[in-house]
C-alpha cells in the first residue's frame, strides 16, 4: 500500500525529533490498556480478541487525534495477545482478566521462582534457545503461543496496513529485554537479586551465554515487523533498584551492546526506563548522539538529565500515570507546560510515563496531547 503523505510526514517528524530538528514537541501515544474502559469494552474481551483489541485501540486514538494530533505511537497499536508478549520478554507467567483475574481487572505478572538453580548451568552450557525452551512451557500455554504465532503470520501485514491507513507511524515495533531482565523475571526479583550478591560470576556467565541469542532475536524480530525502532527494556535494572556494582557489571554493558547492535543494523533504540535512573544517566553519553531515545516514567529527573546530556538523547515521557488516573486536565496541562518550559521541545516526545494506565481519564489523555501540541 502507498502510505498517505501525512503518514510520511509523521515518519519524518519522528526522525527529526530524534535529531533535535523538530519544530514542536512531538505527541506520542502509549497506553496498552487505556482504550478498553473509555470505549466500553470489557478488559477480558479486549485482551483476548486481537482484532477487537486493534480496532478499539485505533478508535480510541482517533478520538484523541480529533482533539490534538497524535504524531506517532510508541510501540504499535496492540493487535495481539499482551500476555504472550510479556511472557516472552520476562519469562514470567501473566495472569489475565477473565481467566485468572476478574473480567475488568488489569493483567498482572505472577512473579515466581521458575528458573531453578540448575537452569543457570543449562543457560551457560546451551544458551538462550535452550533456556527459553525449558522455561517457557512452565509460564505459558504452548497452544496459546502457537495461536499467537499463527495470528501474527496471518494478520500481521493486514494489521500493520490498518495502522498505516489510520496515519500513525510507530517509533518502535519490538520490545527487547536484556539478559538481566530475562533472568530476573524467570527467577523472581527477590531471588535474582540475592543471586547477584551470592553467585555473581554464575549470573554473569549465564547472561553472557544467552546474550548472542538475545541480540539475534532482537534484530530479527524488529526486521520481521518492519520497525524503525526497538525498545531496550530497563525495569529491574534501574539505578534506584540495584547497587552500582550490579549495574556496572550485569546491567549496563548489555544494554549498551543492545543499543549499539540496533544502531549498527539501522534500527533506533528506545531505552524504556522504568523507575529512577538518575545515578547512571550520564552513561548514556557513551552511545552516539542524536541516535536514540530515553523513554522514562516520571521517576527519572528529566530536567537534570537534560542538563547532563544536552542534546545527546531524545526524551520520550513522562506524564505520571497517577496524574493521568486521578488528576484533572488542568493539572495535566500544567505538568506538560512546566516540563517543556524546563527541557524545551527539541528532541522531545510527550507521552505517558511508562504506559498510560487502564484507568487514565480520557480528558486527561487529551489534555496531555493538546498541551504538548499547543505549547509555544
Amino acid at each position, binding site marked *: 500500500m502507498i502510505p498517505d503523505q501525512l503518514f510520511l510526514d509523521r515518519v519524518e517528524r519522528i526522525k527529526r525529533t530524534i535529531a533535535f530538528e523538530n519544530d514542536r514537541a512531538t505527541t506520542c501515544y502509549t497506553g496498552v490498556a487505556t482504550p478498553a474502559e473509555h470505549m466500553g469494552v470489557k478488559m477480558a474481551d479486549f485482551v483476548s480478541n486481537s482484532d477487537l483489541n486493534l480496532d478499539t485501540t485505533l478508535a480510541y486514538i482517533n478520538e484523541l487525534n480529533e482533539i490534538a494530533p497524535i504524531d506517532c505511537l510508541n510501540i504499535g497499536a496492540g493487535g495481539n495477545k499482551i500476555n504472550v508478549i510479556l511472557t516472552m520478554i520476562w519469562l514470567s507467567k501473566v495472569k489475565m482478566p477473565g481467566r485468572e483475574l476478574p473480567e475488568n481487572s488489569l493483567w498482572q505478572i505472577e512473579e515466581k521462582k521458575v528458573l531453578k538453580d540448575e537452569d543457570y548451568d543449562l543457560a551457560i552450557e546451551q544458551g538462550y534457545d535452550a533456556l527459553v525452551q525449558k522455561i517457557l512451557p512452565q509460564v505459558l500455554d504452548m497452544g496459546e503461543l502457537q495461536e499467537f504465532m499463527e495470528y501474527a503470520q496471518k494478520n500481521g501485514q493486514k494489521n500493520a496496513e490498518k495502522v498505516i491507513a489510520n496515519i500513525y507511524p510507530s517509533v518502535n515495533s519490538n520490545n527487547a529485554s536484556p539478559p538481566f531482565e530475562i533472568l530476573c523475571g524467570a527467577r523472581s526479583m527477590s531471588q535474582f537479586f*540475592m543471586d547477584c550478591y551470592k553467585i555473581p560470576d554464575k549470573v554473569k556467565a549465564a547472561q553472557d551465554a544467552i546474550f548472542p541469542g538475545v541480540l539475534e532475536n532482537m534484530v530479527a524480530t524488529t526486521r520481521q515487523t518492519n520497525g524503525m525502532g526497538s525498545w531496550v527494556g530497563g525495569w529491574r535494572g534501574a539505578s534506584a533498584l540495584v547497587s552500582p556494582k550490579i549495574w556496572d557489571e550485569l546491567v549496563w554493558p548489555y544494554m549498551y551492546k543492545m543499543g549499539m547492535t540496533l544502531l549498527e543494523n539501522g534500527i533506533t533504540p528506545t531505552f524504556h526506563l522504568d523507575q529512577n535512573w538518575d545515578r547512571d544517566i550520564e552513561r548514556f553519553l557513551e552511545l552516539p548522539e542524536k541516535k536514540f531515545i530515553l523513554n522514562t516514567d516520571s521517576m527519572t529527573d528529566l530536567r537534570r538529565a537534560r542538563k547532563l546530556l544536552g542534546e545527546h538523547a531524545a526524551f520520550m515521557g513522562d506524564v505520571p500515570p497517577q496524574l493521568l488516573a486521578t488528576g484533572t486536565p488542568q493539572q495535566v496541562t500544567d505538568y506538560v507546560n512546566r516540563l517543556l518550559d524546563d527541557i524545551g521541545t527539541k528532541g522531545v516526545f510527550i507521552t505517558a510515563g511508562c504506559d498510560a494506565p487502564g484507568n487514565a481519564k480520557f480528558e486527561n489523555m487529551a489534555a496531555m496531547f493538546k498541551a504538548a501540541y499547543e505549547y509555544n
Partner: protein
Amino acid sequence: MSIAEMLANLEDEAVMAEVKKQISDGVEPMKIFEACQEGMNIVGKKFQDGEYFVSDLMMSSAIFKDVSDVIKPLLGTEGEATIGKVVLGTVEGDIHDIGKDLVHAMLSAGNFEVIDVGIDAPVDSFVNALKENPDAKVLALSCLLTTCYDSLKATVEAVKEAGLTDVKIIIGGGPVDQSVVDFSGADTYGETAQDAVFIAKELM
C-alpha cells in the same frame, strides 16, 4: 569486625558464622540480636544517604531473616518485646508481593511485629486484623496498580467506618504519591521500604 559491621557490609556467610560462634561461646542471644539490629540500622542509614539501593536492602533483609531464625528461638519472652505492631498487606485486586515483603522485612528488622494479611487482600481482612490486634496502631497498604486506587480508598474508608480512627494509615508502592494520599484518605505515604520504618516509628 563486629556482627553489625559484617551485616552492614552484606557479608552473609561471615555474619552467620559469627552469630553461630558467639552462640556457642555463650554470648547472650539478646546481645547478638541487638548487634544484628544495629547492622540493619547502618544499612538503613546507608540507604538514606544514597550509598545503598533496593537490592542492598533486600540482601540485608535476607541476611537478617536468616540470623533471626537462628537467634529468635533462643530469646524466650525477652524476644517478644517489640516497638509496636503494624498490619500490612497489598490491597484487593493487586497481587504484587515484592514491595510488601520488603516492607515486612524492614519493619521486622526495625523491631516491629508485623501482621501480614498477604496480597490481593479484601477490605475485611485488614479490618479484621486490626480488630484482632487492637494494639496495632499502624496500617500499611501496598498498591502497585493505578487501577487499584479504588481498593486503597475502600480499605481506608472501611477502617474509618469500623471506628478504628486511632489507626494511622501509610500507603506505598510505585504509583503512590501525595495525590494518591489525597484520593484515598490515607494519612501519609512512603517512597521506600525504609520510609515505612521511619514513618511507623513516628506514628507509634
